[in-house]
């Protein structure tokens, strides 16, 4: 950190050499003093404005700290905090840096960096309106910020800056830029500025090409603007041509994005519908409480997180991996209890089971409400934040990718379990002919219980995954439940392949329709499509075949 700060200051200085006479004047120190100890409200803002006007590089670290709202006093000196370290008792301490007149680390007498908790520092509150008066100088403050995101913003701010030497400053800064994303963004600004100033068509065209090959976030917009308001006719046409190309490319990217969204919604539906399909296939039970097992899974994840952070004091993402099996098992156990207490008595009466499970879902929702209150959420693990950038304009969020991956794994495991294991054979046997299986020595009751455990557990797993995209509320189970019922019906009752195919189909169609119509009309259209589909395939995608099945 120490080294970063030094580098930062160095760059600041480099960038400004030759631009402004550098040097520490007495007035600067006075203004700094005014900011730290203002004699009146207006004194602080006047001093700040003065400092901004002077643009003294030596004050930049100080101003940047103000802008970051990370300015403190230590023994009367302005300081800021650096990276944090965790102590054994869980509390956090920070490295401390002096800001003015010199930016350097605060050291202990033995030369090691001094570590202090924030509470031992005196915080200086500087209002947002005061902070905003630094706007003209902000790009320069952040051009060398260690955080690439901040640098991107700084580059963007240069665009509207009235500074005549901004192109040189920007090129200088970009020479030092290491981050790929920030480089692209910075180059885009640079080329745009140069394009605007280009005098000859060949030069302008070259910059249009550079912009195109650089392919930043706003390239279409920039070229479009230029094709309308540019000065050179030939280059304008050239830019317009590029815009058409880019737009068709963007259309394709949009399609890819829709495809991805469809797959990701589809995989959520599959994850939920899988358990439903298994339970439903076995006993013909419409489990209205299925959504509530999802909720149980989500709350289990929440509890595991609480256990890790509040009780065990482990602040890592480990909890999420623990909570995957835990949510499966806890939801499964609840399913087992439900099966033992209620469903067991209802295997011969599937429609009654619908009503009983409806009652159970009421109880479970209220139970969750009185235990957990109403709104909670799981903090998503940090490695799932953000997304994978396939190309500019196409980001695949990690959490969605994770859910897709999880779905693939869960579906494969379920498939293996059902079609490659002894238990699977028993489950399928009971599904097809309960009494015959019983005659052949299959313990149907045990199989029933295990199936229910699995089905509910899968819902719990889905609930755990759902914490990545939504919050955890007692009635969260209701959101996707009708959709996943539709998936089961369209796929063909009790058919895993059907659930996968129809889940993907419904997810994909929803997203495609959503991009044309609004979400609601999309839903109505989907229903109409499903009804039409069932005209031709009344028993879903994969119906049971043969003579007996038709009774």
């Amino acid at each position, binding site marked *: 950190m120490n080294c970063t700060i030094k580098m930062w200051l160095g760059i600041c200085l480099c960038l400004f050499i030759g631009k402004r006479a550098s040097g520490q004047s007495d007035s600067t120190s006075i203004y700094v003093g005014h900011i730290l100890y203002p004699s009146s409200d207006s004194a602080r803002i006047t001093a700040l404005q003065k400092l901004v006007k002077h643009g003294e590089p030596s004050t930049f670290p100080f101003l940047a700290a103000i802008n970051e709202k990370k300015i403190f006093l230590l023994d009367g000196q302005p300081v800021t905090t650096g990276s944090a370290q965790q102590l054994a008792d869980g509390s956090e301490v920070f490295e401390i840096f002096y800001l003015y007149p010199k930016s350097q680390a605060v050291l202990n007498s033995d030369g090691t960096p001094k570590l202090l908790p924030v509470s031992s520092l005196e915080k200086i509150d500087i209002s947002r309106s005061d902070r905003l008066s630094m706007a003209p100088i902000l790009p320069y403050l952040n051009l060398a910020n260690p955080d690439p995101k901040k640098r991107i913003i700084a580059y963007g701010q240069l665009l509207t800056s009235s500074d005549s030497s901004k192109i040189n400053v920007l090129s200088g800064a970009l020479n030092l830029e290491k981050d790929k994303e920030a480089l692209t963004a910075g180059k885009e600004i640079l080329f745009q500025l140069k394009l605007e100033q280009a005098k000859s068509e060949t030069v302008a065209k070259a910059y249009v090409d550079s912009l195109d090959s650089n392919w930043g976030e706003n390239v279409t917009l920039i070229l479009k603007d230029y094709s309308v308001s540019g000065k050179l006719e030939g280059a304008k046409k050239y830019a317009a041509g590029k815009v058409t190309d880019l737009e068709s490319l963007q259309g394709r990217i949009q399609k890819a994005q829709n495809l991805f969204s469809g797959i990701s919604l589809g995989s959520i539906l599959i994850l939920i519908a899988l358990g439903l399909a298994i339970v439903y296939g076995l006993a013909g039970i419409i489990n209205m409480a299925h959504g509530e097992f999802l909720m149980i899974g989500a709350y289990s994840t929440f509890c595991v997180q609480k256990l890790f952070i509040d009780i065990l004091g482990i602040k890592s993402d480990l909890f999420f991996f623990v909570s995957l099996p835990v949510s499966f098992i806890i939801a499964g156990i609840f399913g087992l209890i439900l099966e033992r207490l209620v469903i067991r008595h209802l295997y011969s*009466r599937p429609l009654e089971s619908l009503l009983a499970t409806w*009652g159970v879902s009421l109880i479970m929702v*209220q139970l969750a409400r009185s235990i957990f209150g109403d709104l909670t959420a799981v903090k998503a693990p940090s490695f799932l934040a953000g997304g994978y950038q396939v190309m500019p304009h196409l980001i695949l969020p990690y959490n969605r990718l994770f859910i897709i991956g999880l779905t693939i794994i869960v579906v494969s495991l379920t498939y293996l379990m059902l079609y490659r294991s002894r238990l699977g054979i028993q489950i399928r046997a009971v599904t097809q002919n309960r009494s015959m299986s019983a005659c052949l020595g299959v313990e149907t009751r045990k199989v029933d219980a295990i199936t229910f455990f699995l089905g509910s557990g899968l819902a719990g797993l889905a609930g755990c995954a759902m914490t990545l995209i939504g919050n955890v509320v007692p009635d969260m189970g209701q959101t996707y439940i009708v959709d996943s019922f539709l998936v089961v019906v369209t796929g063909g009752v009790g058919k895993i392949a059907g659930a996968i195919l129809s889940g993907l189909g419904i997810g994909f169609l929803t997203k495609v329709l959503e991009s044309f119509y609004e979400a609601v009309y999309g839903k109505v259209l989907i229903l109409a499509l499903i009804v039409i589909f069932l005209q031709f395939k*009344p028993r879903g995608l994969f119906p049971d075949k043969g003579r007996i099945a038709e009774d």
Partner: protein
Amino acid sequence: MEKTKDFRLYLAFIILFAILLPLGNLMGFVSNNTISLWGRYFCFAIAALGVDLIWGYTGILSMCQAFFFCLGGYSVAMHIVMKGATASGTSGSAIPDFMVWNQINALPFFWVPFQSFGLALILGLLIPAAFAFVFGYFIFRSRIKGVYMAIITQALALAMWLLFLRNETMLGGTNGLTDFKSLLGLSLSSPGVKLGLYLFSLAGLCGTYFFSKKLVDSKFGKVLQAIRDSESRTSYTAYRILDYKLAIFIVGALLAAFAGMLYAPQTGIITPGRMDVRASVEMVMWVALGGRGKLKGAILGALVVNFLYSICTSLFPDSWLFILGFLFVITVLYFDKGFLGMIEKIGGGIGKKKNKITEVAEQQVV
């Protein structure tokens, strides 16, 4: 014997609801709130009769009855709102308030017929019937039944609910239609009119009950039960199942719509909240809890469940969901014939008085 038992039961029902409660209200023992509560329960009971005909007798589990209920409710509400707009005549226009707020300047075409009360009544029945016909035709044609039927109708209810929530539908969005002033020139806030609506609902319930009873006792009703028992046998005995299912689906929709028409003016508001998935499942619940396949069971279920809902949300605001939830589960588990079956069982336990109580639980099938 059966006849006299039935007769006594009917008499008791009539004395209680048509004489004792209204008299009590006029004399001030029974509050207006109680009267309007029961008036609304009767509407639910009418809708429950429809559910029982479709599900209890024919075996089609329809989970979109609340949607038909709301279609009826909305049509009457549209008429009332329109009349209110004409009466208040804000800036000379006859456009309901919520449209003015949403900057809709011309009355949407589908609102026009509802200016007439007669047309509103006819459309309130015609639209659900037509809807039931079209939707039912495609569903029954492709022989969707059982669980499939339940889920498809549930999805229909969901889709329609979402549609009605939209403001573009021009039916008031989430807020629905409200601010009902008067119906046929009678102020809806006066106690007399409220009592009148109560009695009218009661009469409606009795009328639809006897209509339904006639229906299920006729050969038509027997065909319905035959369809429930064995669809294939019914069609090999030359009955066109599609016709019968469609007919009873439409009758059920009509009953629900009729109930909705009575319901809206008594409640003072109709919103899409009345037609969400939950509302439809609840209607099925009433019938299941009361006793499926028995008309009296449907009525009993609708009245008892709603009465409990009203009381429990006031007496046990924190735990009523537990109470109702457990009631559902226990009834389904141990009294598979619903409240009627429960009365029968308890009656059986008392022994000597059995012959008096079982009449309540009399079966439709002799």
